[in-house]
């Protein structure tokens, strides 16, 4: 019998989430979202260590190639599995 554990867990999880969510609304956590975007930056920022815009081209191309290859492989296996599925 696993239902009692599951129901207890789900109930506890649901109640905690709901309480926290309601607290967040009451506490104004969903207000002032424009300012919230800047929170990580409000700390003092170090001077830029960057020689900016030197993002080397070959790295972009390599990453792009890896991304496309991964996507293509994933797509291919999806098609392959669906074609071979004995539905």
């Amino acid at each position, binding site marked *: 019998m696993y239902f009692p554990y599951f129901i207890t867990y789900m109930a506890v999880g649901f109640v905690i989430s709901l309480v926290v969510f309601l607290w967040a609304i009451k506490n104004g956590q969903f207000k002032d979202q424009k300012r*919230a975007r800047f929170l990580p930056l409000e700390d003092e920022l170090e001077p830029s260590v960057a020689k900016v815009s030197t993002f080397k081209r070959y790295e972009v191309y390599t990453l792009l190639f890896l991304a496309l290859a991964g996507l293509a492989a994933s797509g291919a296996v999806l098609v392959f*599995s669906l074609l071979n599925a004995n539905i």
Partner: protein
Amino acid sequence: MTTNATSALPTYMTAKGFCLTSGFWMMVATFMGLLGATELIAPDLTENIGWLVFGRVRPIHVNLVLFGFVTPGLLSSAFYYVPRLLRTELYSEKLGVITVLAWNFALVTVVVSLAMGYSQGREYAEMIWPIDMLIVLAFTLVFINLIMTVAQRKEPILYVSVWYVCAGIVLTAVTFSLGNVIWKPNSGSLVGIPDAILLWFYGHNVFGLLLTPLSAGVAYYVIPRACRAPLYSHTLSLFGFWSLLVVYTHIGTHHLLQVPVPTWLKVISIVDSVAMVIPVMAFLINIWYTAKGKLGEIHADIGAKFVFTGTIMYFFVSIQGSMMALPDVQRVTHFNNWVVAHAHVGVLGFAGMISLGGLYYILPRITGKPLYSRFLADFQYWLILIGVIGFTVVLTIVGLIQGNAWLNGETVYRILPEMHVYYVTRASIGLIIFSSAILGLYNILRSIFFNPGEIS
């Protein structure tokens, strides 16, 4: 926060402690992985050495990667950014140091007990009861420190990273206890199928409710800072956070689609696995739009470079995961190395990369000196990137060979010779990752202890 008597600056002892923990255990964990991979090509290698047989090496590898390398790395960043985002000090640096010590003690007991054969034989929940309790204690200590820091905050709004890290820690403490059935100390399990359901409910949450939120928290902090640009949308990030809680919490049964569990559970898990695209894309769109046009800045900061690459891996692992939850796809991909490939993209490519990224981002800030060697970190980046892609390609091929063979009723042993060459390649890639871990540990040690760099 504990302060330096002379400078009154934060000491960041906890963040440093977790950095060292992560660097050290990454080395041990990847060595165990390499050993396991070698045993798969040379099964007699550790013949008659009971504590080094594959069945013991594998759980040591897996648990050390999760709880020794990735989680502490992500926590080291959290202990740095949570107080800063809340414009306050860490509640207790002393408690933090105690947590680091307890955490490492727990890890040592994990290694020793598993090597001695004390295992409950349930994946990700192998550890025996006393160690389970130590781990729950360690998570509880982390939570107390973070939640008290939230309580004493001077910034009223909780930035999304704070939401993620706090939720990740609470949810893990709870699901870990449940998944390890801690109310049954002797067996640590229920009986039969219900046990499998409970176990996978927890097992999935290790990735979904621990590694993912902690990694998201780091990315949401590091990327805007490295780009010197505000987050694209904080509302979207909160939407992603709450939808992750709704969707991710009950998809564990997608690990059991081939098992006679109730259909309604399978349906929920499949539907929500596909729905995962919502929190995933909410996160990625936000991060990528924040970084739009700023790739130069990302490239210039080694920490951000790791983190950004991790987000690309997250895209892959999630899209792949949603597809793997489709029963027809899983008929081919389940029970073979395809899943191992997916696991490595997720844990090393996504969470591991972001963990290292966060670590390299904060190291100069917690030591007040530049990173010992940017070159070594860059080198490690490329080794890991090549390693992850290599694992993915090789293991995916092996998985397809196995999946198809078994689907066609082929006998298992007949395809072993076909797999051998891939297993050799896989072990070589393991060597690359292990070497990168040694470089990483050296870089971390030199950055913290013997750093010749100018104090900034």
